[in-house]
């Protein structure tokens, strides 16, 4: 299952082994290598990776608290299913919290930060033009991180990071919705203008509207899946 030597890479990255394991399993779930309902065997993983079961068990507990796996008594660990309704709910929270984070960040945004946003926005448009949507999503995340990292509410930063993890499960869905990317890239231009004008309330409103717009698409998609089923 795993091609790299986890133990070695855990040591070289200075990352505790359970965290490394959690990253690895999470990634496999996000990209769909592990499917909803699929069983994850501690024993099998331990054997394949030649590590003890304790760090694997810890990793699984972490993933359980994040909602990626469910531990079912006498059945073991399975990849938890997700619905578009769940992700719509996460997006609503993301909209509120990111918009507020942007509002808190506004007074701390330097000219350099704003220039960085402009550069990233240009790169976003270039990625869309060349249909490199995976690249777009990476730049898009950098754009948001530029202001999410500012402002002083540590709990808020932690919550934003936790939400980001959930939303990664939508990666495959987004790759099929290029028109959403165009909408984002355009709104990002307006957000930059509002930062430039030091209009924190406008920034907040734009970020919230942008994310709620995406939330609506996620909800719609969930509805149409249900109707077709």
């Amino acid at each position, binding site marked *: 299952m795993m091609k790299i030597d986890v133990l070695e890479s855990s040591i070289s990255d200075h990352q505790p082994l359970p965290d490394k394991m959690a990253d690895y399993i999470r990634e496999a779930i996000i990209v769909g290598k592990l499917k909803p309902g699929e069983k994850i065997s501690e024993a099998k993983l331990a054997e394949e990776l030649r590590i003890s079961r*304790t760090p694997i*068990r*810890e990793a699984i*507990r*972490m993933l359980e*608290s994040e909602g990626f796996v469910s531990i079912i*008594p006498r059945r073991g660990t399975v990849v938890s299913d997700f619905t578009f309704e*769940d992700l719509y*709910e*996460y997006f*609503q*929270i993301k909209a*509120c*919290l990111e918009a*507020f984070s942007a509002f808190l960040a506004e007074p701390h945004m330097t000219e350099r930060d704003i220039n960085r946003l402009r550069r990233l926005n240009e790169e976003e448009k270039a990625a869309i033009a060349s249909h490199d949507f995976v690249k777009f999503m990476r730049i898009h995340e950098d754009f948001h991180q530029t202001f999410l990292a500012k402002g*002083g*509410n*540590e*709990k*808020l930063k932690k*919550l934003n990071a936790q939400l980001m993890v959930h939303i990664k499960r939508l990666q495959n869905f987004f790759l099929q919705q290029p028109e959403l990317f165009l909408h984002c890239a355009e709104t990002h231009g307006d957000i930059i203008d509002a930062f430039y004008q030091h209009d924190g309330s406008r920034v907040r409103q734009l970020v919230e509207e942008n994310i709620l717009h995406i939330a609506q698409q996620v909800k719609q998609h969930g509805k149409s899946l249900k109707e077709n089923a």
Partner: protein
Amino acid sequence: MKRDFLVVHKNISEIIASHQTLREKVAELLREAIIQQKINPGERITELEMASRYGLSRTPIREAFRQLESEGFLKIIPRKGAIVAELNEKDIRDFYEIKAVLEGYAARIAAARITDVEIGQLEHLNRKMKECAAKMDMAGLTKNHNEFHNFILEVCGNDKITAVVSNLVRQFLRFRFFVSSSSSLGKIHADHDKIIEVFKAHDGAMAEKYMIANAKLGEEVIMKEFLSVQENKR
């Protein structure tokens, strides 16, 4: 002796019978001990000490530590065990900022969809709060207060907001101890009256505004209590 909380009050077979994992049980015992201030911020606990007290292996203890770290109760120090996380003014401000944003949004959504029956239930909870305040029944007051807030989150219909807020509130259960000794909590029900009025008009923008103001008042009440407890410690 401070360490009384570590006395095993349930044996292993009872834990197994209660369908709780050992990790959950250990986490619950420790969380309770921290909330009730049987162990204090800054105090150190070790896996080894816990393991020998409970007669357990270190694995469930380590898992419980991790869980409580993610809930904000403990800070894990590699190779040294864990210390009970300190709370400071910034924690309180950060918490109420987030609570205001999420509850404000929930109130905005709830205002559009709340039914007359549901408004009646909010009125009932607010009445019970007033009765508790009159009798100085602080536990009852806190309970009805929390139910009022949770009810609005339920009407909003986003389960995840409820989960995020209650997870944050759990970290702040230590403050409920302060709230219960506070008389100013009685003021909060006047805010609740205003929220009910704008719900009747289905005015989302005002519901959000009043909800945020209510969180601000909550923050002031807790901060006052917190600072006076800090002052007494000196």
